[in-house]
C-alpha cells in the first residue's frame, strides 16, 4: 500500500499536530538563541518536571477517556505532598509537626498516602457512577473538600526539614545524571499504564465506556465498578505524584500542586486524548506533557515574564481542544 506523500497529507498531518509542531519549532529557535538550552542541567530539569506531571496526567487520562474529568487531582497531590512531608521530617528538625514521631520506613509512608488518595478517588468514582453527579461537579467539590481539610490539618504552615533519604530520592539518578530517579519512576509508571490500557480488561472496558457508555452497559460491562476503579487508580497516581513532588522540592505547603489538574488535562488533550471520549494513548500523553513543559522552558529562556506564561499556556489549551474537536467534527 504505502502512504502517498502529497501536499494534502502533509497539511493534514501538520494541522492534526499543529501545537506540537509549533512548540518543537519554538524549542529549536530558542536553542539557537541560547546554548544553555541543551545543558545537562536543563534537560535533567525538563525530564524531572515532565516525570511528575506525566504521572498525574496518566491518572487524569483515565477519567478523560471515559468522558469524565478530575478537578481534584492537583489538590490530592497537595494533600499527599503535605502528608508525606509531615511523616518524613528529620528527627532533629526544630519545627517538627509531630515531635515524637519515630522514623517511619519510606515505603510505608508512600503506601499510606497512595492509599488515602486512592480512597478519595474511589469516592469520586462512586459519586460519579452511583449518584450520577456530573464528573466536573463531583470532582470540583472534592477539590474544595481536600483543600479545606488540608488547610485545617496543616494550619497552612510550610513543611520543611525533610529526611535526607527522602530528598535523596529526587536528587538521585540511575546511570547518567540526566536520568533522575523521578524520570525512571515515571518510565516504570508509563509502562505499567501502557500495559493496563492495552493489555487488560480494565483498559478495554475504559475505552469502551468512553466510546459509548450505553453500548458498554448493554455489552455486559460493569460500568459502575469500572468507573470507580478508574478514579481510584487516578487517586493512586496523585498520591505517588504528591510523594515525589515533596521530595523534589525539599518541602511543601497546602499550595503544592496548585492548578496541576488543569496542566494535566491540557497535557492529555495536546497529546491526543479526545474530550469526546474513547480515544487516548499513553505515548500521546507523554508527548503532550513533554511539549507543555518544553513550552514553559522555552518561554523562560526567551525571557518572557512568568505572568505571561499563563497567557501562553491558556491559549495553547484552547487551541489544542479546538483542534481536537475540529478533527471530530470533520468526520460528521
Amino acid at each position, binding site marked *: 500500500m504505502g502512504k502517498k506523500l502529497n501536499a494534502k497529507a502533509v497539511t493534514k498531518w501538520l494541522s492534526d499536530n499543529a501545537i506540537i509542531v509549533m512548540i518543537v519549532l519554538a524549542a529549536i529557535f530558542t536553542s539557537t538563541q541560547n546554548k544553555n538550552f541543551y545543558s545537562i542541567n536543563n534537560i535533567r530539569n525538563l525530564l524531572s518536571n515532565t516525570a511528575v506531571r506525566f504521572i498525574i496526567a496518566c491518572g487524569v487520562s483515565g477519567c478523560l477517556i471515559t468522558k469524565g474529568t478530575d478537578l481534584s487531582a492537583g489538590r490530592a497531590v497537595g494533600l499527599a505532598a503535605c502528608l508525606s512531608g509531615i511523616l518524613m521530617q528529620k528527627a532533629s528538625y526544630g519545627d517538627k509537626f509531630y515531635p515524637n514521631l519515630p522514623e517511619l520506613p519510606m515505603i510505608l509512608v508512600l503506601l499510606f498516602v497512595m492509599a488515602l488518595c486512592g480512597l478519595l478517588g474511589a469516592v469520586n468514582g462512586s459519586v460519579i457512577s452511583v449518584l450520577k453527579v456530573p464528573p466536573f461537579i463531583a470532582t470540583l467539590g472534592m477539590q474544595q473538600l481536600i483543600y479545606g481539610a488540608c488547610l485545617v490539618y496543616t494550619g497552612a504552615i510550610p513543611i520543611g526539614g525533610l529526611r535526607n533519604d527522602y530528598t535523596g530520592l529526587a536528587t538521585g539518578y540511575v546511570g547518567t545524571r540526566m536520568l533522575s530517579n523521578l524520570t525512571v519512576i515515571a518510565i516504570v509508571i508509563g509502562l505499567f499504564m501502557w500495559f493496563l490500557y*492495552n*493489555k*487488560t*480488561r480494565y483498559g*478495554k*472496558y475504559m*475505552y*469502551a465506556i468512553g*466510546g*459509548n457508555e*450505553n*453500548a*458498554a*452497559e*448493554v*455489552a*455486559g*460491562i*460493569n460500568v459502575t465498578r469500572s468507573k470507580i476503579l478508574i478514579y481510584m487508580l487516578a487517586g493512586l497516581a496523585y498520591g505517588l505524584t504528591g510523594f515525589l513532588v515533596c521530595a523534589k522540592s525539599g518541602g511543601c505547603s497546602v499550595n503544592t500542586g496548585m492548578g496541576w489538574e488543569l496542566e494535566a488535562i491540557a497535557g492529555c488533550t495536546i497529546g491526543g486524548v*479526545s474530550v*469526546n*471520549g*474513547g*480515544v487516548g494513548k499513553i505515548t500521546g500523553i507523554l508527548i503532550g506533557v513533554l511539549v507543555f513543559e518544553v513550552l514553559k522552558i522555552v518561554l523562560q529562556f526567551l525571557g518572557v515574564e512568568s505572568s505571561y506564561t499563563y497567557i501562553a499556556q491558556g491559549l495553547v489549551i484552547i487551541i489544542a481542544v479546538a483542534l481536537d474537536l475540529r478533527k471530530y467534527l470533520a*468526520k460528521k
Partner: protein
Amino acid sequence: MSEYRLEMRGVVKQFPGVKALDHAQLKLRPGTVHALMGENGAGKSTLMKCMFGIYKMDEGEIYYEGKKVNITDPLQALDMGIAMVHQELQPVPERSVAENIYIGRYPMKKLLGFIPVVDHQKMYDNTAALLKKVRMNFDPKQRLGDLSVSQMQSVEIAKAVSADCKVLILDEPTSSLTANEVEALFRIIEDLKAEGVAIVYISHKMDEILRISDEVTIMRDGKYIGTWESKGLTTDKIITQMVGRELTNLFPKRNNVPGEVVFEVNDFTSISPRSFRNCTFNVRKGEILGVAGLVGAQRTELMEGLFGIRLHSKGTIKYKGKELKITRPRDAIKQGIALLTEDRRATGIMGVLSVADNISIASLDQYLDMGIVINNKKIEQLVQDNVKKMSIKCPSSKTQIQSLSGGNMQKVLIGRWLANNPDVLILDEPTRGIDVGAKYEIYCIIEELARAGKSIIMISSEMAEIIGMSDRVMVMCDGRITGFIDGKDANQENIMHLATQFETAPSAAV
C-alpha cells in the same frame, strides 16, 4: 383558486440506500381531516417532514392555495400557516405553559420606550385565550412538566393554533392517550375543522381513522397508493391496500427444526403502566420467533426488559425450567441471552474503537493469558473467523467501526454476541437500514443459528421479513401480546388485525 388548501405532487426523497418517497402525493381540502396511512416505514412521516421543511425533497412540488411554494425550513412553514405536532413531543418541562407556546417568538414590548423586553402580561392573556379555544382551562403560568401527557399534547396543539395555522399535521397524536383523552382531542379537531383548518391525521388505529377522517390516503413503500373517501371504507379494505405487496424470494430456505420449549417468559410486566404488561410466551430450541407490531407496541421495551435494561415489576423468565434472575444486562449475558439492540449507533457500536475492540468487548474473559493479559492474537483470530464466516467487509481489524457500512457494523455486533455462544438470541430490527444484499446475508446467518439449535427472537417492523423468516409469529399491540400465528399461516392481513387490537378501542370497531 384551487379546491385544495395544499397539494404535494411527485415527491421523491432518497436516503442513502433507500428510496423513502417514490412519487408520493397528498391533496388536502380545507375544513377536512385527511388520514395518512401505511405500514411502518411507508414514508408517512418522511412526507410530512418534507411538507414541514425538515427534509428537502429531491423531486416534487408543493402548491399552497394554488400557488407553487418552496418550503426550506420549519420556520417558513409556520409562517405560511403549516403547523406540526410531532410524534415525540419536545416540550421544555421546566418552563411555564405560556413560555412553551411562545418559545422563540415571545410577544415584546418596549420598556421606557426603547428597551425591548418580553411582554409577559400579553403572553399570559393570549395563552389563556388559546387554551380556552382547545377546551383546556389550566393556568398559563403552570409548569409544563406538571401536566399529563395528553394535556401537554393539548398545549402543543394550542401552540399550533397560536401560529394561526391553516394546515395542521398530527403525527400519531393518540399513541399515549387514554380513551377519554382521545375524545377530548377529537372535540378539538372538530372545532378546528369547523374553522376551516386542513388536518393531516397520521395513525395506525383503524377505528379512529374511520371515525374522525373525511378522506384517507394510503402509502406503501414510499409510493402513493390512492385516496378514498372515508365513508365507503372498512378496516379490511384499508389493510388490504396498506399491505398489498408481493413477496418475492428474498429469504433463504429455512431448514431449522424447532425442538422442545426452552425459553419461557411468564406474566412479564413493566414497572411503567404504559409499557409491556402480562406478557407470556415461549421459544423453542432452534426456533425463530418473529415479533410483529406497530410502532409503540412496546416490543423493544419488552425485550430490553427481558435483558435487564428496563425494570420489570413482576413476571418470570426460565431457561430449560430454571428460573433466571436478571436485573442488569450482564446477568442476562451470563445466563446465555444476547440482545442485538434496535439502535446500532446508540446502544451497539463504540464508534471510535476498532472492529477488534468492538467484537471482543463482551467476551474478553475468553482471551486472557494467566487470567490477566489479553491475548491479541486470539482476538485477531476471532475477528478473522467472523470476517470469513459472515463475509464482513472491513479493511483491517484496527479499522474504526464507525467507518463501516450499516450491514457490516451489524455483522460485527452479531459476531460480538456469538463470541459468548448464547442460547437465546434476541434480534431487534436486525436488518434496519441495511441494503438488500446484506439483508439476505443476515437472514442466512439467522437461519444458520437456528439450525445450530439457538432460540431466536426476532423483532421486525417489516412484514415481509416477519413472514419470510418466522417459524411462529408473536404479535403485540400497545404493550400486550395479542396473539400467535404459525409461520406457515402468517400473512399481512392476520398480523395487521392482531397488531391493531387496541384495548381502549371503542366498541364500534368490531
